C-alpha cells in the first residue's frame, strides 16, 4: 500500500507543492485523487527534504489543499507496449480512447527513453519517396531523418503531412512500415482529418495515434510526444519496423513548457520560453534515427506553425538547429493557389547528399536538383526586378529565367493532393523545365548528363 499524503501546501497553475514527503525520487510518477472523485497524474519536478514540486498533467482544477490525496508511485511515467498498440488511438497520456480493450503490455517503458549512443547510430542513407516533387527532387527525406514542416496558421500542413504518411515508400523494398501520430493541442477537426485519412487508406491498421486536443489539459502535451516516441522506439528497435512519426503541433508543446516554466518563476530565455527549450526539444527530436545492426528506423516529421510566419521565432529557430533540415511553407505560394506551397529555397534537407545518386535514386539527382535551385533563385530575383523596373529592363536571358521560375512553381512544385509522382517522373520534369533555359546556363549538371537527359526543345 502506497503512502497517501494530504499535505498539499500550494497550488500554482499546473504545479502542486506537497510537504512532508519521505522517500520521493526526482522524476517519479504521482497520482492525485481529487475530493470530487476524479483523479489526475503528475510527475516530480523538484524534490527536497521538505517538499516535492509536482507538475500535474490533467490540470489542477478541483484540487484543494486539505482533502486531495497524493500518492508517489515509485516509478516514472511509463507506457505499456505490445504489438497490439498498432491500430489503436490513445489520449495524450497513453490511455485508449477508441473504445477498445486495455493493452496487455509486453513491457512497460519509461517514456523519457535514453539517448542513443552516438557510436551505435547508423547513418541514414535510404531515400524515402514521398511522391511530392518539391520534397523528393529538391529536399529529399531519408530514413532515420528528422525533417520538420515549418508552417503558418491557415496553411495546408495537415494535408502535406497526411500525404507524406500515405505515400512514403522506400524504393525497391518491401518492409514492415508503421506510422505513429502524435497530436498536441490541435483542433478536433484537424485530428479528425488525420484519423479519417488513415481510415480511408486502411493505414490505420499500421498506425498508433496519440491525441491531445486543443481543449485537453495543456500540461498533458508535455508527455504526449514522449509517449509517441516511446511507442515508435518499441516498434522500430524491438519489432524491426520502419516508423514514420508525425508530431503536430510542436508550437503548442513549447507553449505548455513555457507555462510550467512561468509557474516555477524560472528566468526566461527569449520570448518567455525557458532557457532549456533547446535541450528539451532535442530530447524529443534526437529520438529519430537508425541503429547499427537493427533493421528498423525512426523518421520524424514534426509540424509547427510559426507565430507570424517568423522563422526566427524561438520555436522554429531552435527546431531548425536540431533537425536535419526543414520544409518551409510559403504564404505567397499558397495565395497563388499552389499546392503544396513548399518554398524550396529556404527549405533544406541536410541528409540529401547521402540519400541520393546512383544506386539510390539516379546519378543525375544531385546535379539537376542543384541546377533547379540555382535557376529558380535567379528566376525569382529577376522576377522581383521585373516588378520594380518592368519587363523591358530584363535581358533576354533573365526573361527566360523568369519564365522558368513561373513554370517551376506551376508544374514542378504544384501537384495534386493525391498525386504520387515517382522520383523518375520528378527528375524528368526537372529536366523538361531546363529546356526553357539557354544551354550554356546549365552549369550545375555535367556534360554527359545533359546529353543523356536533356530533351531538345519542342518549341522556341
Amino acid at each position, binding site marked *: 500500500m502506497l503512502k497517501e499524503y494530504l499535505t498539499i501546501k500550494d497550488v500554482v497553475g499546473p504545479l502542486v507543492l506537497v510537504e512532508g514527503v519521505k522517500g520521493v525520487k526526482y522524476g517519479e510518477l504521482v497520482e492525485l485523487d481529487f475530493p470530487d472523485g476524479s483523479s489526475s497524474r503528475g510527475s516530480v519536478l523538484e524534490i527536497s527534504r521538505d517538499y516535492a514540486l509536482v507538475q500535474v498533467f490533467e490540470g489542477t482544477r478541483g484540487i484543494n489543499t486539505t482533502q486531495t490525496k497524493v500518492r508517489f508511485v515509485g516509478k516514472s511515467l511509463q507506457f505499456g507496449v505490445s504489438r497490439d498498440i498498432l491500430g489503436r488511438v490513445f489520449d495524450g497520456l497513453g490511455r485508449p480512447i477508441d473504445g477498445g480493450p486495455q493493452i496487455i503490455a509486453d513491457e512497460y517503458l519509461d517514456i523519457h527513453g535514453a539517448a542513443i549512443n552516438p557510436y551505435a547510430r547508423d547513418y541514414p542513407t535510404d531515400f524515402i519517396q514521398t511522391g511530392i516533387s518539391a520534397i523528393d527532387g529538391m529536399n529529399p527525406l531519408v530514413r532515420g531523418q528528422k525533417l520538420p514542416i515549418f508552417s503558418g496558421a491557415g496553411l495546408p500542413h495537415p494535408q502535406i503531412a497526411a500525404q507524406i504518411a500515405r505515400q512514403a515508400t522506400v524504393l525497391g523494398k518491401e518492409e514492415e512500415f508503421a506510422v505513429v501520430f502524435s497530436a498536441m493541442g490541435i483542433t478536433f477537426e484537424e485530428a479528425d482529418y488525420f484519423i479519417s485519412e488513415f481510415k480511408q487508406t486502411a493505414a490505420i491498421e499500421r498506425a498508433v495515434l496519440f491525441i491531445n486536443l486543443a481543449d485537453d489539459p495543456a500540461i498533458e502535451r508535455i508527455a504526449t510526444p514522449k509517449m509517441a516516441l516511446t511507442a515508435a522506439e518499441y516498434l522500430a528497435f524491438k519489432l524491426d519496423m520502419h516508423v514514420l512519426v508525425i508530431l503536430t503541433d510542436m508550437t503548442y508543446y513549447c507553449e505548455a513548457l513555457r507555462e510550467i516554466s512561468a509557474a516555477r518563476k524560472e528566468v526566461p530565455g527569449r520570448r518567455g520560453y525557458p532557457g532549456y527549450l533547446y535541450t528539451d526539444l532535442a530530447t524529443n527530436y534526437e529520438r529519430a*534515427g537508425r541503429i547499427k545492426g537493427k533493421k528498423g528506423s525512426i523518421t520524424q516529421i514534426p509540424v509547427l506553425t510559426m507565430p507570424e510566419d517568423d522563422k526566427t521565432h524561438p520555436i522554429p529557430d531552435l527546431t531548425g538547429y536540431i533537425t536535419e533540415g526543414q520544409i518551409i511553407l510559403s504564404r505567397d505560394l499558397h495565395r497563388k493557389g499552389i499546392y503544396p506551397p513548399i518554398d524550396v529555397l529556404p527549405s533544406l534537407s541536410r541528409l540529401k547528399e547521402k540519400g541520393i545518386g546512383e544506386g539510390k535514386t539516379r546519378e543525375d539527382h544531385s546535379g539537376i536538383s542543384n541546377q533547379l535551385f540555382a535557376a529558380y533563385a535567379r528566376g525569382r530575383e529577376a522576377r522581383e526586378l521585373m516588378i520594380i523596373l518592368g519587363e523591358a529592363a530584363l535581358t533576354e536571358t533573365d526573361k527566360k529565367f523568369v519564365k522558368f521560375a513561373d513554370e517551376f512553381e506551376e508544374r514542378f512544385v504544384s501537384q495534386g493532393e493525391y498525386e504520387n509522382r515517382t522520383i523518375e517522373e520528378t527528375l524528368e520534369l526537372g529536366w523538361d523545365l531546363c529546356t526553357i533555359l539557354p544551354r550554356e546556363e546549365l552549369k550545375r549538371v555535367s556534360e554527359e548528363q545533359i546529353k543523356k537527359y536533356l530533351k531538345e526543345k519542342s518549341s522556341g
Partner: protein
Amino acid sequence: MELGKIVKVSGPLVVAEGLTNAKMYDMVRVGKEKLIGEIIELRGGFASIQVYEETSGLGPEDPVLSTGEPLSVELGPGLLSSIYDGIQRPLDVIRSVAGDFVIRGVDAPAINREKKWHFKPLVKKGDTVTAGDFLGEVEETSIIKHKIMVPPQFQKATVKEIFEGDFTVEERVAILEFEGKEHEVKMLNQWPVRKARPYKRKLAPYAPLITGQRVIDTFFPIAKGGTACVPGPFGSGKTVIQHQLAKWADAEIVVFIGCGERGNEMTDVLIELPQLLDPYTGKPLMERTILIANTSNMPVAAREASIYTGITLAEYFRDMGYNVALQADSTSRWAEALREISGRLEEMPGEEGYPAYLGSRLAAFYERSGRVVCLGSDNREGTLTAIGSVSPPGGDLSEPVVQATLRIVKVFWGLEDRLAYERHFPAINWLISYSLYLDKIEEYWGEQVAQDYKNLHDEAMKILQREAELKEIVRLVGIDALSPEERILMEGAKSIREDFLQQNAFNELDSFTSLKKQYYLLRLIIHFYQLSLKAFQQGKPLNEILEAKVKEKIARAKFVPEEKLEEIKKIEKEVEKELQVEAVRTKNGRQGC
C-alpha cells in the same frame, strides 16, 4: 573520501549536505548508481553539484561521495581514434557494455588498460631530465608518435631506470629520482580539465593553418595557434565547414567536440573519417582524430564539461610539439548549458538569462589556444588552434554569445542564410568576415607560394567590394545604368564568387584545394578580368567579352586534379588567345610555388 547526503534534486542540479571538506570543482559520486558530478557552489554547509547523468530516481537522503579530486581526464597512448562523451567515457566501450542506448551509471576507463604499447626510450639511465622532456615514445597510430613526457612537477630529475619493451599504460616505464625520492613513471597520467596545462611561454602565431577551403585560406586565413569563430543561423552550413576543417586542416592532431549537436552528425564523422585519407600523409584521417560527442539529448551538465575535456586533450598533444586543431560545434550549446545550471543555482542573470561570467569563461577557454614553447629542454614549439561555431538565435549576431566570442577571437567567418539559399557554399559572407592574421600570413604566402599572391588577394577583395556597391545601383536602376567597364567588373566578381569562393564539400575533386591550386585559380580569374578590361579598351565589343567561350573552362578549372595544375595555366593561354591581347604579367608572376 567523505560521505554526504542529498537534500534536494532539481534537474541536473543536486544539493547535498555533510561534505565539509569538499572544494570547488571536486568530483563527487551521487546516489547508489554513483553518477559522476562536480561541485559548483558551496553555501552555508550545502554543496551544489552538477550531475553529468540523468538524475531521475535520485531523492533526498541518497548518498553523495566526495572524491576530493577535481574532474580530470586520463592522458596516455590510446586517445587517438577514440570517441568519448563529455566526461571522457569511451562511447564504443559503453556500447559494448550497455547496449545501443546510453544508460546511467555505466563506467569504463577512458584509456584501455589491457593493451600493450611498445615503449621506446629516448633517454638513458643516468640522464638528467626536466619537466616536459621526452622520456620515450610509443607509436600510437601509423602517423603519430605519442611522446611520454616527464610530468610537470619534476623540475630536475635523474633517470634511475628506463625500460624498453611492451607495456600497458599502468606499468612503469621509468624510475625518476627527484629531490632524493624515487618516482615511478607510467604512460598513463591525469590532468584536471579546468586547469590549463603549463608551457614555457606564448608566441605570436605565424604560419597559416591550411584548410583546403578557398574562401578561408585565401581570403580569411587562420594561423596555427589562432582562434576563430563561425557564427551563422541554422542551415547556413556551420557544421559542414567544421567537418571540412576536421578533414582537411593540416594539423597533426584534430580534436572535434560535438557539443550539444545532432547525433547523426557525429555518426557522419565516425563513418567518414576512417575512409578518408589525409592529403599530407596518405593515412586514414581517423588516426589523428579524437572525437568528443555530447549530443543535444545527452545530459546537459556533461555538455558544459565537454569543451574542457576536449581542450585538455588538445593541450596534451600540443605539449608533445604537435600542431593541434580543436573544433567546438557549437559553443552556443555550451553557453546554454551554463545558463541552465546558472538558472538552477538561482544566480542573478545577465543578458538574455546568461550568467554574468559568460564572457570571462569564454575568454578563458579560447585563451588556452596559442603557439607556445613547450616545457622541456629542447624548446620545441607546439600550437593549439581553437575554432568554435556559434549558433545565434535567429541568426542575430548581436546576441550575447556571439558578442562575447567576437571580443576574443581573431578570425570571424560570418555565415549567411541568404547565401545558403542560393546554394553558395561555404556560405561565408566575404563582406562581413575578417581575419586579423592576414598580415602575417601574407608574408608566408610570399615566401612559400608566390610573390604576387597578396596582390591577387587584394585585387579580388577590391572587385568584390566594388561589386557590392554596384549591385545597389543595379537593384535601383537596372543593369543598363552601368558603364561597360563596370559590367566587366560585375562579371569578374561573379567569376570570383562562383568559380573560386563556391566550393562543393561533397565533390571529390573540389572538397580540398591546395594553396598552390588556389593561387593558380585566382590568378586565372583575375587574369581574365584584367585582359577583358584591356580587350575592351582596345576596341573589342562588350558582348564578345561577356560571352567569351573560355569562361566555361574557367568555371570548370576548380575540378582540375591537384596533380595536373599545368592545365589551369593552359587556360590562361586560351584566355589570351580568345581575347586577342598580350598578357601583362607582373615580374614575379611565375616565381615561387
